């Protein structure tokens, strides 16, 4: 049995708990346990808080890593944002003794210490590396043949690649391979690796700019003929799901494009219902997708 400390962040537990339950229950089938990191806080959002005050961002991130390290396990995140913050903080602190001491000096006042001996991982790595596409393929109960999926990798898991070291940030493959493992087809679309618009504090400050990003991505996906979008990041997930509702409100434009976190797609492939996947709680219903899956069955 393998164990990870799970870093929840904000959006998963406070907006999309379905992603958490789905991921946890699937991992159980592969004998992987997730231990809570009690008292964790906001990661804090890499592009946002580091833009305000790098030191505060770093200190909070370091605290989260520190209490994660106490579990003695590697730390797994489910959001590119959380991954971005924790991985970058880990990188900066392990590479700079002076900085590490400075931050630990602060942390010591609240009784914890950053050691830098835990790996920061992303849920996508657990699936594509620990488990592997092959096992996922075998795991499928009703493969999602005929479903056209558009993947969205997001930014902070891949980039900067010189720090994150997950290979090419221009034409990544692993998420598409995971999607194909479910039997679905992963189709290409314009500006596939483009940002969803959520990050860098833009959403809070200039929502119209953010939604303009989101809109462009959605349009490209629709015109490519995608049945749904599959992401690996809670922030992007929120952006595409909640964003569609906001776009409808502000621009009267409706896309009705189901948004799935990659574990939710896998969940569909093993016949989990949309309620237990948490899809019913999302802004954009997944009916169209489920109809296509069921219709295909008949």
């Amino acid at each position, binding site marked *: 049995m393998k164990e990870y400390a799970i870093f*929840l962040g*904000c959006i998963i537990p*406070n907006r999309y*708990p379905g992603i*958490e*339950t789905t991921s946890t229950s699937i991992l159980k089938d592969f004998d992987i346990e997730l231990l809570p*990191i*009690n*008292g*964790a*806080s*906001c990661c*804090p959002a890499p*592009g*946002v*808080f*580091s*833009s*305000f*005050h*790098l*030191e*505060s961002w*770093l*200190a*909070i991130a370091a*605290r989260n890593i520190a*209490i994660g390290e106490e579990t003695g396990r590697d730390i797994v995140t489910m959001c590119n944002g959380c991954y971005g913050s924790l991985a970058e903080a880990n990188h*900066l602190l392990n590479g700079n003794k002076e*900085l590490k001491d400075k931050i630990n000096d*602060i*942390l010591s*006042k*609240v*009784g*914890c210490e950053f050691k830098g001996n835990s790996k920061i991982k992303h849920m996508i790595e657990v699936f594509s590396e620990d488990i592997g596409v092959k096992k996922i393929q075998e795991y499928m109960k009703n493969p999602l043949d005929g479903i056209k999926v558009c993947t969205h990798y997001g*930014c*902070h898991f891949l*980039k*900067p*690649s010189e720090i994150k070291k997950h290979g090419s*940030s*221009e034409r990544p493959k692993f998420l598409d391979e995971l999607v194909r493992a479910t039997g679905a087809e992963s189709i290409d679309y314009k500006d596939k*690796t*483009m*940002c969803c*618009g959520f*990050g*860098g*504090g*833009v959403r*809070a*400050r*200039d929502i119209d*700019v*953010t939604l303009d*990003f989101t809109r*462009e991505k959605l349009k490209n996906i629709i015109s490519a003929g995608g049945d749904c979008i599959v992401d690996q990041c809670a922030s992007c997930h929120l952006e595409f799901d909640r964003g569609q509702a906001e776009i409808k409100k502000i621009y009267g434009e409706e896309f009705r494009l189901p948004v799935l976190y990659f574990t939710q797609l896998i969940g569909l492939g093993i016949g989990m219902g949309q309620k237990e996947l*948490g899809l019913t*709680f999302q802004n954009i219903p997944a009916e169209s997708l489920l109809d296509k899956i069921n219709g295909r069955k008949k």
Partner: protein
Amino acid sequence: MPVTKNIIRINDLNSGFIEELVESGRKIFGEDVLRSVEACIQCGCCTGSCPSSRRTAFRTRKIFRETSLGFKESVLGSDDLWLCTTCYTCYERCPRGVKTTDIIRVLRNMAVRQGYMAEAHRMTASYVFKTGHGVPINEEVQRQRVELGLNRLPPTTHSFPEALRSVQEVLRLTGFDEIVGFDWETMELRGRK
């Protein structure tokens, strides 16, 4: 902006701006990361790669040009500076290895110090002071969690008040409260300083 009529007097620019930039970011990123802005050849690869500049007035290239020449006020005072979503596409492609996104974040830190922090951003920050979360829980999701068989509240600062207190303490120690203008008495944002 040191402009007289239609002339920019280079003499009037703040030639020390680069050094201020280096000073503000050195401890976190190291000097080289900040100095890399001097290697910019204005090829525009950053801006051409930038999804924001396809729809806004944000021009990474322009910001770096202004930074290296010393247009301090116009760089730090500009709203455009805040239209970067930190997607790192320019960072990946810059042929001169300019650490674009890091430099932009340091410039933003400097802007914040100068009082250019949007109310919306102060609000976001205040949530963390109050709850430890940038996106705190709400009633509806608490119900959803229970329906999904989870605890009402996640095992985060939401469930552990002492953890929240240590987050607050950390932010006090780093001086974030002063930067954002957070009032510990009222546990609310102070009016603009």
